[in-house]
């Protein structure tokens, strides 16, 4: 794709995304837009840490719920109402990052399975704390401060706030990917011991990425809390939330920037739509479908839509032409050269 075409496509995409609530005014449709943007942000934030480092975190809901609860508790205790509550979003980001530090210091000492399990354990500790403490409202949770917005266009400002969060998170992900920091993260993913040997301060780098990811997730958690008007321990700290994020990232393309975005844009509207259909009501069928989509993705599209799709396009475009890759890589010289008859082997015989 030429840079010009790419630029035009990007501008067209931005125009569509920005104009969406102006064109579509039906609240049940804009609802899809708001929640999709919330998940685009959360999935991209997950990807900043887990996609780059290869440490699969199943504890992102810790940040999501912490953000929501921070907003709820701060607004309640300081009696903040109206639009000024959104000034508390930086506080939520700070809390998200702050939670990530001890969480990361404990969890990032271990790798692979143990890391994943520790993130689940920390997640359950947070859920239990939200249920058992009194300042979090116990099992009935917290209600959000009242926003005096007209009901007809209630979703529109939320859409733009969520869109801004999504754009910000994607921008951060893009900047990280192009930076030395991003290279260090990916070096850890490929081989942590070797990366350390080459001078990457692994713990510090991992912890920074974890904190950035936590801050972004906490902010979007707070926005989500306003949008649905309340948070309970079961919804703020929801195990399905973690799994959904991972599914989105894997479906779109784990580790890339566009992958989680695409995955979120597919999965979230799909689940919302499934849950709104009367024949799928009760939630259990959508759960089965989510699991089934997940299995199909992992088994048949193990690298996600974007990488696998990219390979397909490359294959189509280079069809009929001799493969150029084997000539420039190391390895057995006969590999992949079946399409071009080799002269040297004939001569040697």
């Amino acid at each position: 794709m030429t840079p010009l075409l790419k630029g035009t496509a990007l501008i067209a995409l931005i125009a569509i995304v920005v104009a969406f609530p102006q064109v579509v005014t039906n609240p049940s449709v804009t609802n899809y837009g708001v929640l999709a943007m919330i998940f685009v942000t959360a999935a991209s934030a997950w990807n900043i840490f887990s996609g780059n480092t290869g440490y699969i975190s199943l504890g992102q809901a810790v940040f999501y719920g912490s953000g929501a609860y921070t907003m709820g508790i701060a607004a309640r205790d300081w009696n903040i109402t109206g639009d000024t509550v959104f000034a508390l979003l930086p506080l939520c980001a700070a809390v998200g990052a702050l939670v990530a530090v001890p969480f990361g210091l404990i969890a990032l000492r271990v790798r692979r399975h143990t890391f994943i399990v520790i993130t689940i354990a920390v997640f359950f500790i947070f859920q239990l704390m939200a249920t058992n403490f009194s300042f979090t409202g116990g099992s009935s949770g917290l209600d959000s401060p009242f926003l005096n917005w007209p009901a007809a266009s209630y979703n529109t400002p939320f859409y733009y706030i969520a869109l801004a969060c999504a754009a910000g998170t994607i921008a951060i992900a893009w900047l990280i990917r192009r930076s030395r920091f991003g290279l260090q993260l990916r070096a850890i993913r490929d081989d942590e011991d070797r990366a350390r040997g080459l001078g990457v301060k692994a713990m510090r780098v991992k912890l920074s990425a974890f904190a950035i990811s936590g801050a972004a997730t906490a902010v979007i958690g707070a926005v989500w809390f306003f949008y649905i008007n309340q948070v309970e321990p079961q919804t703020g700290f929801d195990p399905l939330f973690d799994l959904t994020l991972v599914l989105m990232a894997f479906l779109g393309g784990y580790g890339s920037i566009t992958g989680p975005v695409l995955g979120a844009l597919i999965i979230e509207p799909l689940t919302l739509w499934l849950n709104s259909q009367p024949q799928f009501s009760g939630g259990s069928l959508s759960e089965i479908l989510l699991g089934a989509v997940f299995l199909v993705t992992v088994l048949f599209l193990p690298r996600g839509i974007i990488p696998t799709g990219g390979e397909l396009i490359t294959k189509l475009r280079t069809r009929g032409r001799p493969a150029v890759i084997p000539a420039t890589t190391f390895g057995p010289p006969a590999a992949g050269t079946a399409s071009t008859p080799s002269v040297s082997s004939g001569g040697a015989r």
Partner: protein
Amino acid sequence: MTREVLEAIVDGILVGGVYALMAVGLTLIFGVLDIINIAQGVLVILGAYLSYSLSTKAHIDLFVGLLITIPAMFAIGVVIHWAFIRRLRGTERTSMTLLVTYAVALIIEGILYKIYGANNVTLSASYTTTSIRVFGFYLPWIYIYGFILALVLVALIYALLYRTKFGRSVRATMQDETAARLVGIDVNRVAALTFGIGVAVTAAGGMVYGATNAFNANSGYDLISRLLAIIILGGLGSVGGALVTSVFMLTVESVVTVWYPTWAIVVFYAALVIVLLVRPTGFFGRKEVRAQ
């Protein structure tokens, strides 16, 4: 007070025995296949529901019903391994298998919801309601029967592991898969059978769990988080570690419940976090070799 604590300790040991059975299955699967089966929790619930259906619909005694549910769960385990686990290869295998078993858990949970609804049920039989008097307090017979059942099954697993040719090939695969392959062990077969055995124990664990707790399709999360804490604390892949840790942790939880019922479950996760700060391999774990 002392009587309550004593009661809590006895309770904890007896329940811990049943958790040990479930945890041994999980840790065996980890040892041989290098995966954590997140679905173990919901499989326990599936086992409990199977016993529930057999006892309410066909009026088969809970313990006799195990003769049907254990082979059934074994078959389910082999099928899960054949359909999903076997197919995963490559560098991301660790995280992939975790996610796949999570997805399997979701599907099973959804199906159980569809069939049995969201209401809590309990398995009942004559021995779940009658009690025996020990040290001045009453203990339902099911706790004692369940503990004996768990002891017998764990002993059987030990015998299988240390007294049979199959057990030797399982242990060889746990130590070094490549070397096991080189000496002629059919590693895929060992893996499938181990997964089956690891899942089969959930039938017995689920029956006792269902007879001592009210459960619904959602109860699997609570179970799996405890089981994961147990096997990591015990050292991943260590059968003995899983046994000791289950009994120890359940006893601690039971004693904490006497004073702080709502915080008791936190003991698990807090212990996990604290122990891993000091000893990342758990109590009985071997040092992990560098993984590529």
